[in-house]
């Protein structure tokens, strides 16, 4: 063989020796961390699921645009999202999270939307020693299973609707009868069981307590069972069923001082129900009108982290041409919590990040965040509080979602009579 025929091989060998060095010197300065999650892009949870993904993606875009997060060794960390559609199905979740960890090399995990799906995913996170921030997963029971790496960003289900009863007690002290009609999934059941116990402890008579299957479309049988003299109708489940329930309550001429439902009313899409939406109270993890700020953090003696609330709303609207809902804010804040923990620990190591999360106590645009770090209910959210909204008509007759509770966050007083 002529000597020149060896040149390509020699060139390749030299490049082979040089390139890994070049790559490692680049990776010493910058590192990409994969954040894995499944998302309900299709299926019955897709309204809530898509907003959650929007929130996560906005956070990734912003944190990377700001240069990422600097670790203790000087490495600049940037984040990239890897997600799969779980089709809102529990059976898909475990397989996909295992894939995210083993194939896609996800370093941190964010939960799917809903307590049922998250419960399945949390097992995988714990098994593979990965930190998972849960959003859209309010059920308390997930955090009573001994997980040590699963952290909840939402107010737990046990405190989800109880504030609405406090509101009823203050604005309608004579109210006594409550009807609870709820979806029978894990999250909704946790919420209404806690609500029932709380209501009974406050002296309310639970006149109806009945569940419906996920995917129910005809609520007339339940509405017919609601006593005519009931003071409050509460419950619901997720967007699709709850919005249908609200619509049929209106069509069937149900009357009550209060109709307070889960998940659907805070969504801007709920206004599409028109008059049927008017007067409905919703429990929300967050509203754009909330008043969390660095000043409020200072006043409360808490550390402030992240962007101002107004910036989140503005940036979200600019990117997605819609108002953010609490599901969107939840997605963003899941990323923000990880950003805080990586920044403060100066590491992406699970143990070091966990140490920071266990002690974290801060205020963000989304509100107060603090995790329970006791073995019994590790990871349960103990800092964050719900806000309650009500669809009311403004002077032009346009539906507006007002914050009606707690008093400190009120943008309008609740009007206790349904239908409006």
């Amino acid at each position, binding site marked *: 063989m002529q000597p020149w025929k060896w040149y390509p091989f020699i060139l390749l060998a030299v490049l082979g020796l040089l390139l890994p060095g070049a790559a490692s010197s680049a990776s010493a300065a910058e590192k990409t961390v994969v954040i894995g999650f499944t998302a309900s892009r299709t299926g*019955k949870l897709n309204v809530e699921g898509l907003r959650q993904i929007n929130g996560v993606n906005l956070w990734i875009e912003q944190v990377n645009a700001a240069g990422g997060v600097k670790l203790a060794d000087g490495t600049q960390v940037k984040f990239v999202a890897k997600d799969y559609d779980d089709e809102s199905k529990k059976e898909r979740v475990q397989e996909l999270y295992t894939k995210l960890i083993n194939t896609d090399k996800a370093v941190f995990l964010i939960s799917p939307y809903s307590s049922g799906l998250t419960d399945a995913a949390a097992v995988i996170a714990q098994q593979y020693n990965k930190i998972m921030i849960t959003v859209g997963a309010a059920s308390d029971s997930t955090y009573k299973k001994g997980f040590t790496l699963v952290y909840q960003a939402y107010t737990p289900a046990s405190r989800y609707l109880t504030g609405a009863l406090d509101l009823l007690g203050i604005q309608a002290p004579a109210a006594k009868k409550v009807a609870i009609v709820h979806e029978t999934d894990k999250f909704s059941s946790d919420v209404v069981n806690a609500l029932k116990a709380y209501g009974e402890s406050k002296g309310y008579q639970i006149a109806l307590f009945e569940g419906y299957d996920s995917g*129910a479309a*005809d609520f007339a049988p339940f509405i017919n*069972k609601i006593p005519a003299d009931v003071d409050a109708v509460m419950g619901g489940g997720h967007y699709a069923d709850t919005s249908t329930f609200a619509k049929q309550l209106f069509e069937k001429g149900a009357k009550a001082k209060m109709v307070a439902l889960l998940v659907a009313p805070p969504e801007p899409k709920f206004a599409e129900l028109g008059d049927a939406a008017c007067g409905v109270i919703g429990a929300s993890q967050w509203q754009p009108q909330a008043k969390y700020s660095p000043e409020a953090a200072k006043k409360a003696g808490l550390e402030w982290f992240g962007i101002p609330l107004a910036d989140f709303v503005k940036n979200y609207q600019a990117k997605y041409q819609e108002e953010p809902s609490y599901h969107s804010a939840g997605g963003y804040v899941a990323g923000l919590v990880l950003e805080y923990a990586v920044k403060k620990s100066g590491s992406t190591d699970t143990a070091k990040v966990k140490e920071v999360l266990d002690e974290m106590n801060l205020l963000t645009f989304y509100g107060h965040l603090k995790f329970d770090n006791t073995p019994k209910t590790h990871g349960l959210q103990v800092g964050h509080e719900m806000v309650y909204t009500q669809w009311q008509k403004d002077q032009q007759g346009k539906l507006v979602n007002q914050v009606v509770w707690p008093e400190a966050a009120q943008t309008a007083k609740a009007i206790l009579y349904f239908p409006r």
Partner: protein
Amino acid sequence: MLERLLASLTDGLLLGFVYGVAAMGLTLIWGVMTVINLAHGPVIALGMFATYLLFTHLGINPYLALAPVALFGLLLGFLIYGAAVHRVINAPHLSSLLATFAVNMILIGVGTAIFSTSPQNIDFPLGSLKIGFLTIPVTRLLATGGALLVTAALYLFLYATRTGKAVRAVANNRRAAELMGIPSSLVLALSFGLGTMLAAVAGGLIATFFPFTILSGGPYELKSFVICVLGGLGNPLGALLGGLVLGGLEGLVPAFMPVSWVPVVEFGLFVLVLLVRPRGLLGAK
């Protein structure tokens, strides 16, 4: 208690008429060509979306929109028949079952890609009618009227027209009908089209009072199977009666026990009918 019972029964029966129309589509296809159409559910859902799109984009009254929706259902039926059913019509039942299941998956997949699975809602409030202690949403009353009209039209077609007679002849004995000069392939295609037309119309009627997604047709398809067996496979009038029985049960059962018992009672009755009167309440075709 009596008031609650009557209110529940009324709601159930009104819904039962619409269930009946959906089931009539399924039973017609079975009666004429002994094909179990597993694409029935997505066609119901497409009927919902067609009505929704005509209402939201063209501003057509959803009840008037049912005419173009029916035409759409008919044409869709021809398409499904030609593409997936015609070649397997004489094959064992499993082949046509799998063919229509494939169409079901295709329609759901395409529908999900186009419409996503976000719930949609036809915002066309007509208020409620108060009759004594009964509060009946006008949308449900109109849907019942629509269901009765469709049933009457189907009966007129089947029993008062020459083409209807041909459909009945093919349902009765395809070979004999062919020997009498009836073009059975055309009749089969027409019957399949009529079946999907009824499904699409039922979807359009349901969309006027329930929010829906592309997956919403599934439960109505399942109900349609139960109704067909209750009323008698292949018997359109039986389907309407079966729909009323099912709707009535769905209204009455929750008045006495938790709603989770409804499927237990419904499917219990289903098994009972299969055991005691396998040809259904009005007998098969």
